[in-house]
């Protein structure tokens, strides 16, 4: 499923004293199966932007085109498109409401009008996909679970709709390192298994660096940059000047390079840095 954002502008409360332009002339093309990271300072417009992608917000100007279909054309099948684009909000566990985990996850597919046996199958699959034991949790109240488990249940609720695009807004905020890694690994596994398009909104440059293929950078309502992770994280000064940063490990390699050491400075993970330093040490040893 491809998404094209064309000259998108969004103004909150137009014509009132509170009028504010949240998005300004955004152009963005997301191809089928891509893994994007969306970064930007708080209030840069990330959440406003992703709410346009499944039609929760209507552009003030511009268009959202999904698989060739304009989302806001009169003929658009908004409901169907929404089901295909799953949006996981920040702190999605606040949206849990049912008596049991199973009922909560089933809420979406049931509303889609699917037959009961299909709903049951999807619920089981979704719960397992987020790394929970279906039989152990299905009859529990979602509110007896830990924070990390609740968040997984909320994500399962979106997965049970079988989305083709999964958008996650800060899925790991407030989780401990293990919980964070588990959820991210599950997203990666899911993407491989179902071949879905994923957009990850995050303030963690470390997570973005090791996971996504492409990054879009927001600043004050504009999309100021798009590119591969390596390209984007090369611009340390530019990123810090707009409230962002680069992974600590990338900064380490840049600083070594500045001090005249012969190492590649566009590493994104600890593993890459380790390989790069071992290589440099070997070169030095043989010289």
């Amino acid at each position, binding site marked *: 499923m491809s998404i094209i954002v064309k000259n998108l502008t969004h103004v909150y409360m137009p014509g009132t004293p509170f009028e504010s332009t949240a998005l300004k002339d955004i152009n963005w093309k997301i191809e089928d199966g891509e893994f994007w990271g969306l970064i930007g300072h708080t209030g840069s417009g990330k959440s406003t932007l992703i709410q346009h992608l499944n039609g929760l917000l209507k552009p003030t100007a511009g268009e959202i085109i999904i698989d060739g279909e304009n989302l806001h054309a009169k003929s658009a099948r908004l409901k169907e498109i929404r089901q295909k684009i799953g949006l996981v909000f920040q702190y999605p566990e606040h949206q849990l409401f049912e008596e049991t985990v199973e009922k909560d996850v089933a809420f979406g597919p049931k509303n889609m009008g699917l037959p009961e046996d299909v709903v049951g199958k999807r619920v089981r699959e979704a719960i397992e996909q987020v790394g929970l034991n279906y039989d152990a949790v299905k009859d529990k109240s979602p509110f007896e679970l830990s924070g990390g488990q609740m968040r997984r249940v909320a994500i399962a609720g979106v997965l049970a709709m079988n989305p083709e695009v999964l958008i996650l807004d800060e899925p790991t905020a407030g989780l401990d390192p293990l919980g964070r890694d588990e959820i991210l690994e599950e997203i990666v596994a899911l993407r491989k298994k179902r071949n879905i398009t994923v957009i990850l909104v995050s303030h963690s440059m470390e997570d973005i660096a090791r996971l996504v293929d492409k990054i879009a950078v927001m600043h004050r309502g504009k999309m100021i940059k798009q590119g591969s992770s390596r390209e984007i994280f090369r611009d340390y000064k530019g990123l810090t000047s707009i409230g962002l940063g680069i992974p600590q490990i990338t900064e380490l390699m840049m600083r070594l390079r500045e001090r005249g050491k012969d190492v590649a400075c566009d590493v994104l993970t*600890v593993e890459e840095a380790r390989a790069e330093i*071992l290589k440099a040490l070997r070169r030095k040893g043989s010289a």
Partner: protein
Amino acid sequence: MTAEIIAQGVYYQYAQDNNLALKDINFKIDKGEFVAIIGPNGSGKSTLAKLLNGIFVPTKGEIYVDGVNTASKEDIWKVRQKAGMVFQNPDNQIVATVVEEDVAFGPENLGIPPAEIRIRVREALEAVELTEYAHKAPHLLSGGQKQRVAIAGILAMKPQCIILDEPTAMLDPVGRKEVISTVKKLNREEGKTIVLITHFMDEAVQADRVFVMSNGQVVMEGTPRQVFTRVEKLKSIGLDVPQVTELSYQLRKAGIEIRPDLLTLEETVDCLCQLL
């Protein structure tokens, strides 16, 4: 040094829960100390934080803040005034429509005279470097600025101790740095005792002492260097180490002789420069 916070054999159990949220917690935090508490979700960090300023009282055992028992009903306001709390979500902590009014909310409730409140608000905003935002609407500020307004609101109550429960979880990288450098400044320059709960290891590294919690207990305690060099142990309880510490650990495993206790970017750069 005198102790600011003392926990003696503290147990805590939530109603309708058979498990203990906290088990036999014992520690002393000195006046002017900066302590970071790390631990997996559900390990009891936030429960402990709520015990430190008397939102909860221990099921068993005692907590003293500056000599006052938090379980003493008549002294509870003293405890709250001595130990101020900052929470995760800045939007949930802001009550007024103008920054300076928000900062004034705490001292107003303490019944401080208006002239004194003005002075306190001005000083608190200066301390968090938001003086120029005094007349702005809080919702127009960035996440880091909002969280600093929340800290100023606590400062205006003149606490000796500030407890911050994941104050940076919702912030962007620069917002996080702003909040942490504000916290460090309050600790160094104003001598405030700091208890910082965080999931970010690079923040915990900056404390004087780190407590590691797991399953309701403090399982490790020491300087950041003592704690974070135990990479295996931390990972086994679901925690992490800073990326540079991880790198030096990996390099040592590959047979490279490098200091095992690297914690900050600067010292790692220096150390690697000598090797390369």
